[in-house]
């Protein structure tokens, strides 16, 4: 069943892709092939593969229970929050939070997680910023 759903989504994705490709504006000058031909070809391959999944699905993969799906969803949300807050809070603080959360969810005790989170953050800061000179996000506190 999963493969059938996947095939359906894939088919929709390829149709969406073709639709977006038709919207590519014309340029003031065009080469002989044009900007749309290749995307059409790609979408065709994708659609054929998707139809194949519909007809001949693989055996069902083992999906996690709902709780675990939520776990993955939350981790993704934390990462998104991290990406957004990085420029606001600065590197060290936001990284410590994100690393501590992931460590906790992967099975460390809360206290351990905080320590590991802070340690990870400071360690990365030292290596990447102080040694390698990469410009990481500077928060209100300057780090």
């Amino acid at each position, binding site marked *: 069943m999963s493969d059938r759903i996947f095939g359906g989504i894939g088919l929709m994705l390829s149709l969406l892709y073709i639709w977006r490709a038709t919207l590519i504006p014309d*340029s*003031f*000058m065009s*080469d002989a092939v044009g900007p749309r031909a290749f995307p059409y070809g790609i979408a065709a391959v994708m659609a054929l593969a998707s139809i194949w999944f519909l007809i001949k699905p693989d055996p069902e993969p083992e999906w996690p229970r709902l709780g675990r799906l939520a776990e993955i969803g939350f981790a993704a949300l934390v990462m998104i929050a991290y990406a957004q807050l990085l420029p606001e809070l600065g590197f060290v603080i936001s990284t410590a939070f994100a690393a501590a959360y992931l460590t906790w969810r992967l099975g460390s005790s809360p206290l351990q997680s905080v320590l590991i989170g802070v340690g990870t953050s400071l360690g990365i800061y030292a290596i990447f910023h102080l040694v390698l000179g990469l*410009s990481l996000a500077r928060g209100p506190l300057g780090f």
Partner: protein
Amino acid sequence: MTTTFRRGLIAAALLGTAPAALMAQDFTPENPECIAPANPGGGWDFTCRQVGKTLQDLDLIPSTMQVVNLAGGGGGVAFAEVVNKRKDDNDLIVAASSATATRLAQNAYPGNTMDQVRWLGSVGADYGVIAVSADSEVQDLPQLMEMIKNDPTSISIGGGSAVGGWDHLKVLIAAQEAGIEDVRGVKYIAFDGGGEAVTQLLGGSLQAFTGDLSESTGFIESGDIRVLAVLAPERLAGEFSEIPTAKEQGIDAVGANWRGFYGPGEMSDAAYDYWSGAIDQLYSSEEWQAIMEANGLAPLDLQGEEFQAFVQESVNEITELSKEIGIIQ
């Protein structure tokens, strides 16, 4: 000290009549920062790093210039960031070039225009060249243009920028000056960088090449390619003085890829004067002259208001040309 008076001083400094060290003592950046609107290793990145280093070597800035890479949208991401979030940051400068002006002129930075930032100064220019491979039968620029006029499909010209980009525009300017009616018929093939285009020229896939002088010097010296024309107002100094200009062949086309900086739009006047003054002093230093020579950069010494006017003019010219050709409506 009024603003007008200080600007007068800058103008005087530009003319070389006032000691430059006098300027702008009322502002010094605490954390000088240069945004390179591209990944590390590109042209803008190098502009930031080399200028930053030289400024520090000359003691024109108090501490190390921090170079921040902010890539995306051909410089559009950095431009939007400066306009929206860093508009009154006095410690910030951003690397720019003709590509910036071209994209501004063609509205390729959606919603942004050149007057949203303050243009500080240039640190040199790289003149365009049009070249063919050494064994080509084409001897000069008018001959090439004549061949394009007779049969546009017979000549494939390769260059390192996308269609509508600077390398492409240079050919179109020349074609227009040569009297080709519909310049859109000129067959331009875009490559990822001038080097790749030259390789295809040598391999025989292309008949002509358009690029900057600095990216073709190695092949000029080895005799693998023949430069038909340099798109400079007059002949260059030094080893390239033998290359004829397009102008002297009757095709009045000039194309300079300048490199320079802009700052945030609400930068204070004191900071503006400080940075344009610093770039001016940098430009006239021996250290920078040596770097320019090393990088094949030709002189383009414009700072402050003059540079602002220069960028305005080049944006206007590119806008007009792009409209004529049909790149923008």
